[in-house]
């Protein structure tokens, strides 16, 4: 949160946000599964102005070797922003922020994968942000869990995730870039709707207990909505390939 300059209005008097949404309304979300040829599983996601590709390789031999676990697979996620995904060019390669995000996403995904089925292996998840507009970590996690399912990896469930926050003193769902930059709180969260389990949660900024309650309520509802979009993407993927989703069929890629 980079402070709240008083001259920036994020919510109008009628309760409508600068992009025309209501406080508890999400940006349009679109997910497509199975978009890459080489990867074992993949997904492309557009969420508002965010554009993200996730790919899964594995289970495969674990590198580096010393990370191997004789009892189960490890999930290694790499979250990366492309240099042109943000307004000032980002230097290519990992930084401290992306390393932290990669770690918490790996942990969230590890929980849903039946890792004990694949001892000594690694399941590698790559998240590439082509265009960023706030909420890329939750968008990346949302896409990654669809890519895992597309790879045919046995999982307990999909992982929908969303960010809630506070802008102009109000709790708002799915922060846009302006609300993220000038708002006063940000709370990214991943939750399995079926069980209510929270797999990723961070928070920064300033919120009262009541506000946190309200934010979590918004997030719970949104995760249900995102979950439906995730399932729909997988359903369409399987319908298209006649149940044979693991094979190369680049014909289903959109231009």
């Amino acid at each position, binding site marked *: 949160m980079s402070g709240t300059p008083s001259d920036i209005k994020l919510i109008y008097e009628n309760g409508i946000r600068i992009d025309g949404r209501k406080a508890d309304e999400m940006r349009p979300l679109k997910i497509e599964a199975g978009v*890459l*040829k*080489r*990867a074992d599983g993949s997904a492309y996601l557009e969420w508002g*102005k965010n*554009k993200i*590709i*996730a*790919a899964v*390789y594995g289970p*495969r031999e674990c590198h580096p070797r010393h990370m191997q676990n004789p009892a189960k697979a490890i999930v290694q996620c*790499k979250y*990366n922003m*492309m*240099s*042109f*995904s*943000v*307004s*000032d*060019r980002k230097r*290519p*390669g*990992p930084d401290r922020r992306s390393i932290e995000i990669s770690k918490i996403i790996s942990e969230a995904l590890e929980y849903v994968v039946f890792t004990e089925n694949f001892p000594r292996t690694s399941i*590698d998840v*790559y998240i*590439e942000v*082509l*265009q*960023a507009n706030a909420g890329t970590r939750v968008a990346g996690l949302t896409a990654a869990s669809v890519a895992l399912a597309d790879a045919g990896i046995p999982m307990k469930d999909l992982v929908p995730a969303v960010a809630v926050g506070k802008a102009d003193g109000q709790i708002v769902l799915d922060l846009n870039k302006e609300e993220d930059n000038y708002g006063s709180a940000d709370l990214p969260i991943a939750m399995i709707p079926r069980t209510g389990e929270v797999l990723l949660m961070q928070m920064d900024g300033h919120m009262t207990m009541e506000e946190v309650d309200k934010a979590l309520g918004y997030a719970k509802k949104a995760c249900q909505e995102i979950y439906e979009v995730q399932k729909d993407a997988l359903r369409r993927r399987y319908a298209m390939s006649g149940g044979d989703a693991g094979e*190369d069929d*680049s014909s289903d*890629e959109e*231009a």
Partner: protein
Amino acid sequence: MSEDVISQIKKGHIHKLLSMGRRMDGRAADEYRPIIVETGIIESAQGSARVKVGGTDVVVGVKMDIGSPFADTPDRGVLTTNAELIPLASPTFESGPPDPSAIELARVIDRGIRESEMIDLQKLCIVEGEEVWINFVDIYVLDYDGNLFDACFYGAVAALKNTIVPAEEHGKGENYPMPLSHFPIQTTAVKIENSILFDPTLDEEKVADARLSVTTDENGDLRAMQKGLAGALTLDEVKSIIDTSLRLSKGLREIIG
């Protein structure tokens, strides 16, 4: 592109087909796979393109900023080309700083664009010796199914053609399209035993002996070349590849726009 091993059976199959003048996917030796070009897909970039050549998929973004010129070219903008072979694109790509293949790839793309004088770098000078536009052409491979050299080149060219110089946000007057003076096209062919194949697939690259990329401009002049891999090409083969490249470049230029 260090790729994994190829099975003896597949290798034998490719060789056997070629001895009958055929390719695994049924293409003619000088035939490209379908090329799909999409531009303006990244709003946060000044120019962008996503290009698919068969199963190979790349995204290119152009970012522009103001900086100092190089001392030996005080009146010219700066071009920087970078290619990232990210592990999302292939089971054999690893994260980390660019390896020699990625560096060769980026330098070949850079050379084709620079030597063809595609960008009028003089028009990207703001104050001689002090302020010029810096172009970052950043290439990311998303899916690797052979012939990265051409896919990345077409992506870079399409993204540059789509670039708007962001003068307004830097207080340098109105935005204007990237000043371009030429339209280079590159083709890449590999030699497998005695066959010359354009636009090699990944499997063809794995058994290739030599590779030659040729960049020509819209006047039919040669602008850049790069020979790669450990095999040899005869002078006749080189000439034949250049001739074919020139012939193919017309059709490719129409596709890239």
